């Protein structure tokens, strides 16, 4: 494991770390909004993973020049497909965030707190 290997896959390591941070927050945080924040981090980590797939060294952004007789050399441009997929994933992420926050507001109206242990204690008392 020399420095070059770590650097060559830097984004993959980074995505694993972010994924784990998000997963940890989702599972073990007590506050509901904190869990939602963990969820966003978790989803974004996967998007980072996809974008990393698309990178080609020395590549350009995937907007092809279009002069007469211009031949596109595919190795010079980033892979556009993961970008397309991730546009969808980002939008799905914000949609999930909206619904999750709506539910969190409903929970707060019901119990007056966002801490899961306090809510569970209240449910047990009923």
């Amino acid at each position, binding site marked *: 494991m020399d420095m070059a290997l770590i650097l060559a896959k830097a984004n993959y390591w980074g995505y694993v770390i972010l994924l784990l941070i998000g997963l940890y927050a989702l599972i073990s945080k007590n506050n509901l909004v904190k869990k939602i924040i963990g969820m966003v981090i978790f989803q974004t980590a996967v998007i980072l993973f996809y974008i990393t797939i698309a990178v080609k060294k020395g590549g350009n952004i995937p907007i092809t020049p279009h002069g007469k007789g211009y031949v596109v050399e595919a190795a010079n441009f980033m892979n556009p497909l993961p970008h397309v997929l991730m546009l969808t994933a980002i939008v799905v992420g914000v949609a999930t965030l909206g619904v999750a926050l709506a*539910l969190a507001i409903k929970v707060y109206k019901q119990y007056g707190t966002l801490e899961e242990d306090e809510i569970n204690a209240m449910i047990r008392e009923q």
Partner: protein
Amino acid sequence: MSTHYPALIIVVPLLTAVIVAAVGWINKKYCFPLSVASLAASLLSSIGLLFEVMKTNGEVVYRFAGWEAPMGIVYNIDYLNSLVLIVVTAVALINLIFSKGSIENDFPDKEGVFYALYILFTTGLVGMVATGDAFNLYVLLEIASLTGYALLGIGNERSPLSTLNYLFIGTIGATFYLLGVGYIYIATGTLNMAEIALIIPKLPNVGIIKFAFVICMVGLFVKMALFPMHGWLPNAYSNAPSSSIGLIAPLTTKVTVYIMVRAGITIFTPEFTFEKMHLDKWIVWLSVIGIVMGSCFALAQKNYKKMLTYIVVAEVGYMVGGFWLGNKLGITGSILHIVNDAAMTLCVFMAAGIFSYKIGDHISDFKGLFKKMPFTMTAFAVGGLSIIGVPPTCGFFSKWYLVSGGIEAVKATGSIGALAFIVALLFSSLVNAVLFFRIFEVAHFEPFSEGHGHEGHSAVEINEAPLGMLIPFFIVAFSLIFLGIFSGDIVSNIINQFIPVLPAGI
């Protein structure tokens, strides 16, 4: 139009959902007929599609936007697709007609939006079943999930919290699936299911694919509530309103099981799934524990709806275990159980809808119901017998296939897991018998007591359910017997056509 069936199944509900959402702001009267018409159109075209598949004997291909397979999104409809499509659209249509009254009662201001969410949920499920593209499946999974959260979160006072927990778990599952698709893409460079299946056997290094497989399956197991990831299901389902639970409980877990079958057979190829992974025995054990635990927890419940949710958990164990036995009989049983269990679960949850409208959810309140509502209780009894697995009903036949699959696996490999699976199936049938006969006993022998505990329901007179509810309920109850009688035909004409030649020696 017959060449466009694959598109029509999904497009008609989608367009109608959007229109219904708009019409709900202008005139609520048109929402219900529009919704019913769209789901009926969807059901008809899925039946048409099944005939089309039979005619072409194999698969119907539909290219969206006119692009060929790896570039665009292509549907490859085969026997399995079209069978599950019919189940999904039929359940959605019948439950919609059944719950018209309770929808008008529960959401007076938001009817239009409810119908739109309902149809969008169905669209999501239908799309998941029909699609031939791994990423497209994720998008539709999210449509079904988001609308599902909305439909579940509007129930009683505890539902927002349980739905929020479901949302967290569901997002973990869906995101793991997305990650798995990314791993497949990084190794194969394509997203089309058929193409992936062609590339995987040629790959020199399957390390990444193995991991993609594990992570996809974990995502799906979380979504389908297989033990030990089942914690979210009972709370989320038992707190939901009855009109949406009649849609969600029969379909969500079954469609996820379908995706597992699709992933195991079409995407990853059976050789890879059953031979290279060495996971099948472990997953059978998981399903065994799931069946036993689900049955035991169901036994401990006093609330009817909650009891049903634990039965759902156990049924997931049946299907998953049957598939991972890895032989033809087991997979047949698993697929047949997708169909049968959707119908059975719909039946008992419809009963739950009527009960909670008339009396309440506690089993001890069901005293003397056979006298008060004989027709409802007859249909309910058919559903109960089918879940137990009594012969003329369909529940018996899928259990038969599952058990014979288990016996074959024991014969072929002598695996203890398969033996435990058979024992667990029999145990669970016994427990189901205890559960339902307990209810029959209370409802039949104990006299009706006027002053039962629930003040909130005292205004409703206890008698037969209205005709608008009773007719769909009876149709479902009949279909249980119908499916049972014709299960041999379904297996030989549809399911067996789908199952490929499995590698020997598993």
